[in-house]
């Protein structure tokens, strides 16, 4: 009898494991169901409200994004609440997932056949994802008035190679130079005078403070914060970066080489060690040197003010566009954007679309921009919005008008991983910047050839 019992025990354990497995299709293991329930309980209030309003079945939708900080998440949730209260058919829950994991997890869920219902994603690769069959087209629901409300370049980025629209723009951003007003005044610099790279360098040298061997203040290093070598190259060659207008690799052009040499010269002024130290500070997220007044200028995205509000509420700062490489080449900045889309296999695309339409409406966009700081891709987002009543945003908006959002064709997707190691070598002083670009050019050519 005893041995039977033991055999049963093992058998039962195995069975339990496999049974849980079968049940797991919808609910996961016991515990996960529990977790779900608790999560839902948080929103129970809303559910109750709605079911009272409408006797019909409320459809539960999940919205995935990465806004998790104190500064942003509450606004996202408020926005979602606004949608839930605006109608009675759907109930959306916001789920935040760390930025580093969300895209992987999204595809995993699509492959597993149970994706979320609305997904925030990057704008540059909508076309790629559409080609891969990862997103549902919006065409069945899309109306002209919705389509016509966005700047053409952004809607274009949301359009697949088959001509269908696969996403709507959630937000767009740009890069600009943030400067410390007190430092500028002290050094007698008028921000409006910084028009070219030469002006910028001169200003930086005026702002530098060195005491013996130690740097007390860093005027400007172009490739810290949100500035990369690509930022400056795009600025120098008016928007195409490492490519030409036909997306042929053009990494080692004379213009790019000159730009990279300039970047390197800025770093050399402070020495490699200082640069390494500062870039480690940014990488480790130790403390923002611009916020603490160690750096006088910094390239950052248009979303930076919301983090300064948290970290340095008393800092007096302004913003200027990236200067021109040479007079007349334009204050071009590289920017990106985020979109909302419906993952392939989502259970109720119509409901998902309703939510997307709500979020991209002028009113909601104004709410999000005002509270989160990103810009809207809507063409009716003018000075009458609350967001634009902030002068800083008006300055940033001018930068946005000269922003290049590169939408690269599918065969070059992932090219950064190939050229970045070489670019890094140039930035870190391990190889001559010209050589670095030559090597990167070769690598990019090979990469594109093999990917075709």
């Amino acid at each position, binding site marked *: 009898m005893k041995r039977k019992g033991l055999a049963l025990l093992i058998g039962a354990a195995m069975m339990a494991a496999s049974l849980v497995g079968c049940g797991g299709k919808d609910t996961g293991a016991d515990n996960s169901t529990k977790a779900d329930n608790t999560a839902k309980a948080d929103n129970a209030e809303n559910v109750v409200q709605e079911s009272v309003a409408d006797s019909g079945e409320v459809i539960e939708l999940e919205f995935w994004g990465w806004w998790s900080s104190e500064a942003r998440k509450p606004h996202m949730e408020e926005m979602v609440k606004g949608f839930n209260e605006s109608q009675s058919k759907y109930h959306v829950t916001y789920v935040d997932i760390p930025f580093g994991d969300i895209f992987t997890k999204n595809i995993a869920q699509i492959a597993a056949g149970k994706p979320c219902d609305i997904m925030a994603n990057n704008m540059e690769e909508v076309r790629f994802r559409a080609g*891969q069959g990862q997103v549902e087209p919006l065409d069945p629901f899309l109306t002209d008035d919705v389509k016509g409300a966005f700047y053409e370049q952004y809607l274009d980025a949301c359009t697949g190679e088959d001509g269908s629209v696969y996403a709507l723009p959630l937000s767009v951003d740009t890069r600009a130079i943030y400067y410390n007003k007190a430092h500028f005044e002290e050094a007698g610099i008028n921000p409006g005078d910084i028009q070219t790279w030469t002006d910028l360098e001169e200003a930086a040298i005026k702002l530098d403070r060195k005491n013996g061997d130690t740097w007390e203040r860093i005027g400007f290093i172009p490739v810290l914060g949100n500035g990369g070598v690509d930022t400056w190259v795009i600025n120098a060659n008016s928007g195409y970066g490492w490519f030409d207008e036909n997306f042929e690799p053009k990494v080692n052009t004379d213009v790019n080489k000159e730009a990279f040499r300039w970047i390197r010269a800025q770093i050399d002024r402070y020495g490699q060690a200082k640069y390494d130290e500062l870039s*480690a500070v940014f990488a480790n997220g130790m403390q923002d040197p611009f916020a603490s007044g160690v750096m006088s200028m910094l390239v950052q995205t248009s979303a930076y003010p919301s983090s300064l509000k948290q970290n340095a509420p008393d800092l007096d700062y302004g913003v200027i566009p990236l200067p021109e490489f040479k007079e007349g080449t334009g204050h071009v900045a590289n920017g990106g954007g985020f979109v909302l889309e419906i993952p392939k296999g989502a259970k109720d695309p119509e409901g998902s679309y309703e939510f997307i339409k709500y979020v991209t409406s002028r009113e909601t966009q104004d709410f999000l921009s005002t509270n989160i700081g990103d810009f809207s891709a809507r063409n009716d987002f003018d000075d009458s919005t609350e967001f634009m009543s902030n002068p800083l945003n008006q300055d940033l908006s001018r930068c946005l008008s000269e922003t290049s959002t590169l939408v690269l064709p599918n065969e070059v997707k992932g090219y950064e991983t190939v050229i*970045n190691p070489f670019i890094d070598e140039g930035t870190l002083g391990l190889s001559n910047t010209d050589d670095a670009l030559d090597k990167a050019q070769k690598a990019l050519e090979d990469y594109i050839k093999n990917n075709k």
Partner: protein
Amino acid sequence: MFGKLLTKFGVKSRKGRETAYGYVFILPWLIGIVCFVLGPLVFSFITSFADYNMLKVNFIGLSNYKKMFFQDQLFWKSLGNTLVYSLLNVPLVTVGGVIVAVILNKSIWGLRTFRTIYYLPSIMVGVGTYFLWMLLLDPANGLVNTLLGLIGIKGPAWLTDPNWTKPAIILMHLWGLGGQMLLYLARLQSIPQDYYEAASLDGAGMFKKFTTITVPLLSPIIFYNLTIGIIGAFQVFQEGYIFSGDGTGKPAGSLLFYNLHLWNQAFKNFKTGYANAMCWFLFAIVMILTVCNQKISQKWVYYEEGDNDD
């Protein structure tokens, strides 16, 4: 009950019954090996010949392998990174482990406490340790460079200088060598003291005793650890994933280890077919290392208990 069942099916010979029992006992493992080892291996072998992204399959012959060996520069970079790392890390940690074990095998005051302290880092496992080392290795106000500064050395920018990222990881692993140390210690304690006494009578000094008795007797386990260590180096993932911050293996691709590249191909770019080709290459390397290990160890290393026959 199972016995009755066997009788019913006519299994009567003792041998037959034992075999039936044997298979029942190893059944869970058999299921495991089929579902989690052999099955996946076959599956990945098949899809390694396809353009596969988990949603659609399109067979493309040897293209993935061609791409891997001749076109993907990052493949070689990641393989090179992994080899460089393992060739530096494995010998250093092994030598360090042996030295500490030999010292801790002496009767010294506070021995127990020392053993615990040296072992402590190897039970401080988890992501937290990696974050701790990121903090320790901060070039400006990290502990490591601060200590180096006290003796007049300007420490490098460990994790942002591509030349120093691998030494940084090795430093972290040297800190945690207590796990290996314990293995050697256990082995040392099984060496009969009369070996040393006899050697002493012959006038052998400490160093001579170390080279003629300790090292040969430790040889099997050292050798084993070397091979395991090299294979283990192909397990390195978190170091690259966490230390590079964004999982791309920066700076300058110096933290792009084989597994991180594989991971990015599989779960970031969803080139599952290509990733499976990489899986198979990894499998081949490990198999070659294992066979080499067995061949060499048969010649080279003396096992006291003949353990492979049963």
